[in-house]
């Protein structure tokens, strides 16, 4: 019973750790994408709310480019 309990605890910890490391990996990939060269070449917004606020303020349309960071 003790072994089963320990096994369940280890299993839960492993799951938590792997979920945590997956989340960190996704964050790292996102941060890496945010360093892309093309984003430095012009005034790109990466915040949707701020892009809309800017469009409202200036009366301009938004040119939206959708990409991903979790996979190539």
């Amino acid at each position, binding site marked *: 019973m003790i072994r089963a309990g320990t096994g369940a605890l280890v299993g839960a910890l492993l799951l938590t750790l792997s979920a945590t490391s997956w*989340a960190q990996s996704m964050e790292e990939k*996102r941060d890496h994408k945010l360093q892309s060269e093309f*984003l430095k070449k012009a005034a790109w917004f*990466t915040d949707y709310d701020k892009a809309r606020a800017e469009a409202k303020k*200036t009366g301009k*349309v938004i*040119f939206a*480019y*959708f990409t*991903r960071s979790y996979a190539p």
Partner: protein
Amino acid sequence: MVLFCHITSQVPTDPYQNLLEEKGGNGFPFLAVLDAEGGVLAQHDGARSAAAFEATVTKAQATAKELDELRKKADGGDEAAKIDLLLRQCELGHVKPDQAKARLAELKNVPKEKQAKLDGFLANGEVMQVAQSMDGKDPQKMLEAGKKFAEMRKAGRVPTDEQMFQVFWILTLGYAESQKDAALFEEGLNALKTRFGPHIRKEWVEQNEAKLKAMKEAK
């Protein structure tokens, strides 16, 4: 124009992770021109060149101007402009079905053909909502959906969007079969054959024509 790059990151705490799908995209990269509310004015589906991007932006700006002008006239009480504004917003997907329904109820003297278009959009939205609420291919839920669509058909509300039209009639066929309603089944089968003609698999047509024949003979 405002340049906006959205990154789908799968980081749970990052906001707007479903934005691609909401804007009509289904793969990466996806390019669209939005208004300040986030409404899609145009999707870019041409070449990835500066000239092609410019053409998409120009088209989007023309749409934005058209909407602005209609809005101003509608706000000034122009009933025809209110109708055209709603129609245009439905075409662009800027209005949810419930909102469109509420606004349509307030419109006066809607010309027949525009009423039919608006009814079509409302039906598209209704069918989409039902389809999205269905859990996989639960047979009971499919029958319930088919029953709802049969009621919509009775009330003259049939979707105009190609995908929704398919969903609508295929589920209605299933319901009609369960009720041994040969007339409704035949109507649905003919509607699909008329709309999609040679694009439908021959085996599927033959299978369903055989079902219809059996239903008629059983009467």
